[in-house]
């Protein structure tokens, strides 16, 4: 019995070594254990839903359990700190949301910068939209801008958070184009919607995510501009760029997966490959909401470039407060 076990173990070891080729390095067998996928936000939110769709695909494709773990708090910093304090072995990954993840370390001392992350790939990109309630007198962006310039205290823009993308991008409009807008931060997009419907803020700058759509379809709100370079197929509105604001294209939220820096290259490559396959899988695409899955898969290098670009864009605003 004992001898048999020994032989079996030796055979298994040999087999493993043969597969790896480069020696007994652990990453060759990756993944040989369950993977933790940290979500920096609460369950039920868009990041959580995306993570669970991706997690299901990864389980099928990698043959290991993927545990989705919600660690909300401090706009993601809690989750990123947890990620960065774990072993860089590919068994702890985190969802990330740009630009918020960058704004975090630009505005506060959270103990990490972009160099601490090893980007894996992008899952979804959710564009932003500037919306007004149906009763608003402003029918287009030009009208709103003219109103703001005529009376600097007139136009208030509700944003889902104080230091998030939309607040930062609204401040950029003011800085770059000299449009006096008052940013009024709320606690989440839902509160912005309530304030818009109640006529308490002039406009709202939010994600054009699933929760906005019913309000647009029912005609309770309309979009004055979308924050992408090209028009969107599912929102009937012009872009900021074509209305004379070419710089206002930085507020799309990019949901991606990151690992701690120092994770072995082959592990990252394997994960990136899995994500590429996930973004082509019809079931996963449906789970993620097809509208938000990028047409061309964006891998680790693209996500890294986005980190750099976002940092450059918002450095000014973040410093200015």
């Amino acid at each position, binding site marked *: 019995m004992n001898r048999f076990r020994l032989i079996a173990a030796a055979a298994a070891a040999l087999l493993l070594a043969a597969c790896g080729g480069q020696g007994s390095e652990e990453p060759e067998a990756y993944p040989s254990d369950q993977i933790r996928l940290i979500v920096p936000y*609460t*369950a039920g939110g868009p990041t959580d839903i995306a993570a669970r769709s991706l997690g299901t695909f990864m389980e099928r494709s990698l043959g290991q359990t993927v545990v989705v773990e919600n660690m909300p*708090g401090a706009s993601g910093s809690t989750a990123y700190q947890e990620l960065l304090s774990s072993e860089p072995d590919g068994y702890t990954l985190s969802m990330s949301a740009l630009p918020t993840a960058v704004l975090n370390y630009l505005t506060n001392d959270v103990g990490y910068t972009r160099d601490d992350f090893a980007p894996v790939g992008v899952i979804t990109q959710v564009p932003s939209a500037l919306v007004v309630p149906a009763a608003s007198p402003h029918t287009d962006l030009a009208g709103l801008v003219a109103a703001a310039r005529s009376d600097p205290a007139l136009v208030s823009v509700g944003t889902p958070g104080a230091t998030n993308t939309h607040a930062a991008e609204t401040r950029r409009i003011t800085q770059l184009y000299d449009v006096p807008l*008052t940013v009024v931060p709320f606690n989440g997009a839902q509160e912005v919607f309530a304030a818009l419907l109640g006529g308490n803020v002039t406009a709202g700058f939010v994600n054009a995510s699933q929760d906005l759509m019913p309000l647009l379809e*029912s005609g309770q709100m309309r979009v004055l501009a979308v924050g992408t370079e090209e028009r969107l197929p599912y929102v009937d509105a012009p872009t900021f760029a074509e209305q004379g604001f070419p710089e206002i294209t930085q507020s799309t939220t990019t949901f991606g997966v990151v690992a701690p820096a120092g994770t072995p290259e082959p592990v990252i490559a394997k994960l990136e490959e899995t994500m590429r396959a996930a973004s082509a899988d019809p079931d996963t695409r449906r789970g993620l909401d097809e509208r938000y899955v990028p047409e061309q898969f964006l891998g680790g290098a693209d996500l890294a470039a986005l980190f750099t670009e976002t940092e450059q864009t918002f450095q000014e605003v973040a410093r200015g407060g």
Partner: protein
Amino acid sequence: MGVLDGITQGFAVALDPVNILYVFLGVLIGTVIGVLPGLGPTATIALLLPLTYEIEPHTAVILLAGIYYGSMYGGTITSVLLRLPGEAASVVTTFDGYEMAKQGRAGPALGVAAIGSFVGGVLAVVGLALLAPPLAALAVSFGPPEYVALAVLGILLVTYLGTGSALKSLAMAALGLLLATVGQDPIAGTTRFTFGQVALFDGLDFVAVAMGLFGVGEILHSLERTEKVQAVTSRIRNIWPSRADLRESAGAIGRGSVLGFLIGVLPGGGGVVSSLASYALEKRRAKDPSRFGRGAIEGVAGPETANNASSTSAFIPLLTLGIPANVVLALIFGALLVQGVTPGPQLIDQHPEIFWGVIASMFVGNLMLLALNIPLVGVFVQILRVRAGILAAFALLVTMAGVFSINNDATDMWVVLAFGLLGWLMKKTGFEPGPLVLAFVLGEILERAFRQTMLISGGSLGVFVTRPISGGILAVTVLIVVISIVTARRRAGVLHRHDVPEPASVEGDR
């Protein structure tokens, strides 16, 4: 579609065997997590959410809603028996509920709470069916200035709750407001009093603070006494509320239903403000307000009814506008989104089975809860027979696990312990934790709303009086202050006149 047709269709959905099963499952899970201190509906629903992706959307909401209002029933039990409020809304229940338990009247307290919760829940369901659209309009007309007015009124009521010295209550309310400033500035985003700790960026967690001050503080206090002491010393006299108890609480239940229903519609602090307002209203109306805080049954009946009614009416903004009123409803919103159903103004027309089915299931669920809770009162009361040491250790363990489950963050457990120590010290020095905790909740609302108002109005304070609703609430606030001062003066005058004969009568009694 008329309301009657809708209700008929709703019951057809709710009485489907599968849905009956899920409603039962929901209220059962809700009761259990409500009973376990620290574990709340938010963490539970978040945990169970992925499981609902596989079932029909209306069944999913029926289940999740059941967990939510079921936990409101369950939350009462620990508030009364162990002074452990699991939710902001049940903080006020500890004031008189725990006192009643100490007097051996835990049974009547729990019984009346269950009956009140049932009445409040059912009346709110009727209100939801009949009044949803107009009330939704009221909910959005509540802008930042109105929240400021509401929070100011709430803080005034908080200081009015205490049984001890008004100065101590005020001091604790002030401390609560100060603690609410820990964390990221809601408007500028800079961090305050976080000492560089990322865990403190979002401020102190309410559940951790409340659990520490009330529950752990009480546990430490009870352990200080002899080992043999029971959690509740007096003998448990009767399990059921007497006819007199019911008579005394009937009015409170009626008023609590209406108040809770109306306030619950407001996104944000609905639940807390509703139970707080109900308690204050009952104390105000009472012939002898000094009974409050010493085991007045209306002090349990009113707030418990109000928080249940508010947990039902909180569905109005979600089902009619697509705007969730609190975290739990945001999770339910998420569950529907995943299923491809977007809650909003067209929900009633596009998915009548969800709108009416959920309403009818709430009626069924409340019936089940009443049937579940009344017999269970007898069982739960027996918990008090467990030796204090064992009970304390167990309660502490479950509390810590529950608090950890909220954010998966160990820092929250340190917060519980720190506030437990503070709660124990406060107990020894005669300071009450109630005003602190409630001001802590209201402080966050007050600060954010006040600064939002200032941003929108360009720094003018006039909006608070010129807007009808905020002006109205502030007028009520001023009125309460004036009336209190006048009655206090008058009472002082009366006392003064009777000063001399009174000691004599006391002597005579001996």
